[in-house]
């Protein structure tokens, strides 16, 4: 890539995957030509190179180098400090980037991870209310254990309630769980789940699409739900009300071509869920066995498609 000499990290070699990451971060920081993050992600996929996209859009260098000018060189220090803090940066062009996530239009251009990245991760989201009933929490844990027994990964969002029950049960059963969080990877929300986040970073994967120090905000949770839907094969909604993130995730999953599994309680109690029933890929389940039968069908469907269509 075109390295601009003279920056504070001019001694650092900006090339290879480090250079690609630096170019991707510079693009997202500078947003040249007013590019939005989804537009940047689309251009990265279209060209196959962040350095090329940077060169295409890079603002002409100022005559006098400004202290706050964003370039691939100027972000090199951030990349190094993230690395020193144990955060791994993956761009949408990296082989290790979650492969299913790349297929949805809200695929983040970069993600930060702690833990074990598996590109082809057979995973299902287990989501629902923060204020869940004892029955809901039990079902979330049962579904997480059943997925673990099937050697599948449990995705949840580190929230209170259903998410926590699903993460906890997967970990306790020796399974793999992925926490897709609505804050930067250097933060925790809610604070009470700090220990759980650390445990998942040690034994599973914590993934964030925001800058490492980004605080929780309403829109970040919605974006996080899109990522959860995209990452997995299906979204199982265990218990949810009229205004939950689970509701938004179920709608987005339909728009992503992902399967949605609605617990019958969710359908019984919510008009939005009844409206989803009958739409493509939407299933209802009244037991953990039902959920797992649907999961088996989904896995078989993608296996068949892989055989039918060898890319």
């Amino acid at each position, binding site marked *: 890539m075109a390295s601009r000499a003279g920056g504070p990290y001019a001694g650092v070699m900006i090339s290879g995957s480090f250079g690609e990451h630096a170019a991707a971060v510079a693009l997202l920081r500078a947003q040249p030509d007013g590019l939005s993050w989804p537009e940047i992600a689309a251009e990265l*996929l*279209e060209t196959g190179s962040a350095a090329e996209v940077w060169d295409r859009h890079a603002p002409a260098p100022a005559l006098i180098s400004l202290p706050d000018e964003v370039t691939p060189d100027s972000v090199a220090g951030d990349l190094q400090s993230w690395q020193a803090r144990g955060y791994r940066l993956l761009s949408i062009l990296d082989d290790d980037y979650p492969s299913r996530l790349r*297929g949805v*239009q809200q695929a983040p251009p970069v993600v930060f991870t702690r833990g074990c990245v598996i590109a082809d991760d057979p995973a299902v989201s287990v989501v629902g209310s923060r204020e869940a009933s004892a029955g809901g929490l039990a079902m979330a844990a049962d579904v997480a254990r059943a997925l673990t027994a099937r050697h599948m990964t449990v995705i949840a969002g580190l929230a209170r309630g259903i998410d926590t029950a699903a993460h906890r049960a997967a970990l306790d059963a020796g399974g793999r769980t992925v926490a897709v969080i609505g804050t930067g990877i250097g933060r925790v929300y809610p604070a009470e789940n700090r220990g759980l986040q650390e445990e998942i970073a040690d034994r599973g994967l914590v993934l964030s699409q925001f800058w490492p120090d980004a605080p929780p905000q309403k829109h970040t949770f919605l974006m996080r739900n899109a990522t959860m839907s995209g990452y997995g094969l299906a979204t199982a909604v265990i218990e949810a009300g009229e205004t939950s993130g689970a509701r938004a995730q179920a709608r987005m999953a*339909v728009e992503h071509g992902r*399967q949605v599994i609605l617990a019958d309680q969710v359908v019984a109690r919510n008009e939005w869920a009844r409206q989803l029933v009958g739409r493509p*890929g939407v299933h209802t389940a009244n037991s953990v066995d039902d959920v797992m039968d649907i999961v088996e069908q989904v896995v078989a469907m993608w296996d068949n*498609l892989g055989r039918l*269509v060898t*890319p």
Partner: protein
Amino acid sequence: MLSAIAGGYLRNPVRARQVTCADCLTPVDGYELCFACNSHHAREGLADAIAFLTYAIAGQKSGHVMRGYKAPAPITEHQQVVALLLLVALENHARCAEALAGMPVTHWAIVPSLPAKPSAHPLRSLVAERARGIEVPLTAAPSAELPRAVNADHFTCGAQLHKQSHVLLIDDTWATGGHVQSAVLALRKAGAARVSVLVVARWLKEDYGGNRKFIADLANRDYDSGICPWTGTDCP
């Protein structure tokens, strides 16, 4: 299976007079043809019939799929969805093109990238296994001053076609139709009697004309692979 994995975002193109263009099915405001198709019609010998499998909407998953399937590092899911769309169309609706024409399909061709690219077209291997008839090789010009204009010289046909020839011409994405119609004219020059065009996706952008409302109205119209892409309703 197509419905389960993509029915939530693929959208059957709408065939309704003066609501969508009679040729390319983009929204029109009371006209028979959109501006681009209307200007193409100054030429003789355009496509005899055009089928579209889905709309691809910029910024939505359908648009993402039509880009991603042919990205430098193609997205597997997108390749699978495009392949399945074509497979369903070739298996269930190839005969519809024959019924409309009153003659069997004898040849098939793919609209190459313009200007020419060194790599094989991403649709070619998919279609080669499943299309009826023999391939008509089309080659794109190395450069084109106005690539979107309708110009038979943009493509050369590597075969001479007989009088009863009916070519099924396949393209992935229709934006203005210039590429496809130029390829049709090149096939005519080679002697094609009938050219039926099968396009995977009609590209739509929200920020154009009345598209925003048209696209919003498609939101809950989930994909029905039983709808004939040649007629917009039942098979002919």
